[in-house]
């Protein structure tokens, strides 16, 4: 078998794409919808199909200079124009400028009687006329399935639809066809069989009473595309799709350091504070001063002239300002100067993805240097922990990418392990501060630890964290055999120690005095003994002397007796019976 390489086309040309202008959608699709081909947008009721189709046309006219034709099977042109005014799309003006054509196709099955063979040439002619009259490059058909409810001849309709899509391809217009979601199929009438190039599926899921819109590219022939379900938001600027999970770990790493606003905390963090663009997590149980620490950081950032965006999920803006005033932080000047913006919203207001999208939008529009999320743990109430984690890691990735310092607080449940975040996002955080309540001697005190701080040397010690009217102050805690003591316990322990030290000093003094006393006593004893010895010695010497004298006297007496007797032999001298004691 000879390979038929020569019969292949000369060079494969990648699919040309038609940018939709819808935020995020072009990123997921890698440039837009297939140019000159029909694409199917399907989904359940109220999932945003009509809006997507209309935005595709409006963006086409306003951003890409491509006129569009909107064929509606459901809403009258006036109704459409009215509905889209709320989204800032002035359809009447666009129609007036002949860059947009609206046509409402009304099919009322009740007044139609089928009396033989027919075709949909009327639709074709209207479409062709609309396209040709304004030179349209884009077409939206919403919802073409209405035809199926108007006409009963199914086989004929399908043949006509096939012909319609071929017709649109021949016209070279990029078409968006919307279709209602079917039970087991993408669309109720199986439109996906005819539109084979690009299928976009929209859904609107309600989990725990919170609705989230999501978009998924089911199929995109001849092109790579994001395959996830991407959340999207509908607001006054139309649709925003968030292809956030595509963010990689390519963010820049700044070596710039920013102060935490608490001098001693800066000292604990290698003397310079956080890295700019890093993510900081403060965990702690209720009332440990997380928000106060955040306010300090915001205050110091504003002092440096940085812009701060504060997402608060628990307190209102005024409440935060008032409360922070009580610890000596006045946020009002920064609010007035436009350096600080609060974004207060209830977590249950909308779904997690919507939060993410709205936070993105806020960050995009405000362009802050610092973002505070207080607290991130409240996000869990809007979704399950897994989703919350993925959402937050995406948010943090996004902020890192933008080199925005993220300061997140996290409320941990009392009784659980403290080194555990409710959402389990500690691994994506660069710096993790732990505020802990230290209970003892009938009071609760706050302690601050640095659990981790990537890329800098940091203190391993606990500091006592005090909220004073001059702001947060960090104090050394008492570390002793009795453990870590804080608050009045620390003060009492210090006093006790001072007393003990004094006592010890007095003891030494007393002992020294005793030594002196003992020494003098000993000396006195020695003197007395010497004296006694002296007197005894004198006594003994005198006795010895007396004995000598007595013996001499005896000898003399003996000699004189012998002389008197005329004795032959006179003893010269008698041996001395005693040794003479040598005097000392």
């Amino acid at each position, binding site marked *: 078998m000879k390979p038929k390489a020569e019969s292949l086309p000369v060079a494969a040309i990648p699919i040309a794409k038609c940018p939709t202008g819808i935020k995020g959608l072009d990123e997921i699709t890698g440039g837009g919808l297939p140019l000159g081909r029909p694409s199917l947008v399907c989904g359940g009721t109220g999932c945003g199909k009509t809006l997507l189709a209309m935005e595709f046309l409006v963006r086409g006219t306003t951003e890409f200079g491509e006129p569009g034709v909107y064929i509606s099977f459901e809403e009258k042109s006036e109704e459409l124009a009215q509905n889209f005014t709320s989204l800032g799309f002035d359809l009447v003006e666009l129609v007036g400028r002949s860059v947009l054509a609206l*046509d409402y*196709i*009304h*099919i009322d099955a009740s*007044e*139609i*009687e*089928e*009396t*033989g*063979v*027919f*075709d*949909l*040439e*009327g*639709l074709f*002619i*209207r479409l*062709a*006329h609309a396209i040709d009259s304004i030179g349209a490059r884009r077409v939206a058909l919403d919802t073409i399935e209405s*035809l199926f409810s*108007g*006409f009963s001849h199914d086989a004929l309709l399908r043949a006509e639809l096939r012909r319609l899509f071929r017709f649109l391809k021949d016209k070279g217009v990029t078409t968006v066809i919307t279709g209602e979601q079917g039970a087991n199929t993408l669309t109720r009438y199986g439109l996906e069989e005819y539109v084979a190039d690009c299928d976009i599926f929209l859904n609107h899921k309600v989990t725990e009473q919170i609705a989230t819109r999501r978009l998924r590219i089911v199929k995109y022939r001849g092109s790579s595309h994001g395959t996830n379900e991407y959340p999207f938001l509908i607001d006054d600027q139309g649709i925003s799709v968030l292809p956030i999970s595509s963010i990689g770990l390519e963010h820049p790493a700044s070596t710039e350091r920013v102060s935490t606003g608490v001098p001693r905390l800066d000292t604990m963090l290698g003397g310079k504070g956080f890295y700019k663009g890093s993510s900081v997590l403060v965990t702690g149980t209720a009332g440990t001063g997380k928000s106060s620490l955040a306010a300090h950081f915001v205050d110091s950032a504003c002092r440096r002239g940085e812009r701060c965006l504060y997402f608060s999920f628990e307190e209102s803006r005024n409440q935060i300002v008032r409360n922070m005033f009580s610890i000596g932080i006045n946020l009002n000047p920064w609010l007035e100067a436009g350096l600080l913006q609060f974004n207060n919203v209830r977590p249950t207001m909308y779904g997690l993805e919507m939060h993410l999208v709205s936070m993105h939008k806020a960050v995009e529009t405000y362009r802050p240097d610092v973002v505070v999320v207080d607290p991130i743990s409240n996000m869990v109430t809007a979704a399950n922990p897994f989703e919350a984690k993925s959402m937050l890691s995406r948010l943090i990735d996004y902020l890192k990418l933008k080199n925005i310092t993220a300061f997140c607080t996290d409320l941990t449940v009392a009784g659980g392990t403290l080194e555990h975040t409710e959402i389990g996002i500690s691994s994506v955080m660069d710096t993790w501060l732990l505020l802990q309540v230290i209970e003892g001697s009938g009071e609760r005190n706050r302690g601050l630890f640095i659990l981790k701080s990537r890329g800098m040397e940091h203190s391993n010690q606990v500091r006592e964290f005090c909220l004073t009217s001059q702001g947060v102050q960090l104090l050394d805690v008492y570390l002793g055999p009795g453990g870590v003591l804080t608050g009045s316990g620390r003060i009492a322990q210090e006093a006790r120690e001072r007393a003990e030290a004094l006592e010890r000093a007095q003891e030494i003094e007393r002992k020294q005095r005793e030594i002196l006393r003992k020494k003098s006593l000993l000396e006195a004893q020695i003197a007395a003994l010497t004296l006694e010895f002296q007197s005894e010695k004198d006594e003994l010497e005198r006795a010895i002397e007396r004995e000598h004298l007595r013996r001499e006297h005896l000898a003399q007496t003996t000699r004189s007796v012998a002389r008197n007797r005329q004795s032959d032999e006179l003893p010269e001298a008698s041996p001395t019976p005693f040794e003479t004691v040598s005097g000392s």
Partner: protein
Amino acid sequence: MRDNDNTRSAQKNKRLTGTGTTRPPFDCATYDFRLFVSGMTPNSLRAIENIRAFCKEHLAGRYHLEIIDIYQQPLCAKEYQIVAVPTLVKQTPPPARRFIGDLSHTDRLLSGLGVSCSR
């Protein structure tokens, strides 16, 4: 193209109904038809042929038929909400009805128009 040749017969018809015969009033009214076709396609030609035969047979003298080619007048298609072709639109007498297809099913046409008696 317009079929105006029946105007005279319609007037004659009115005169005839006025002679006291008991007939439902709608049956006596003039039928106003618009037939939308797309050029000289087989369906269109068949529809024109069928409606003319039908009118001659059942509504002789009391109908008014206008045949519109949407290829030539695409705006009419929009104005009259034409999707399927051929479409026969009955404006009067009320209620408005639409018949799509080549009008080969005469019985459906009859029941749809409410024409009970033929002349």
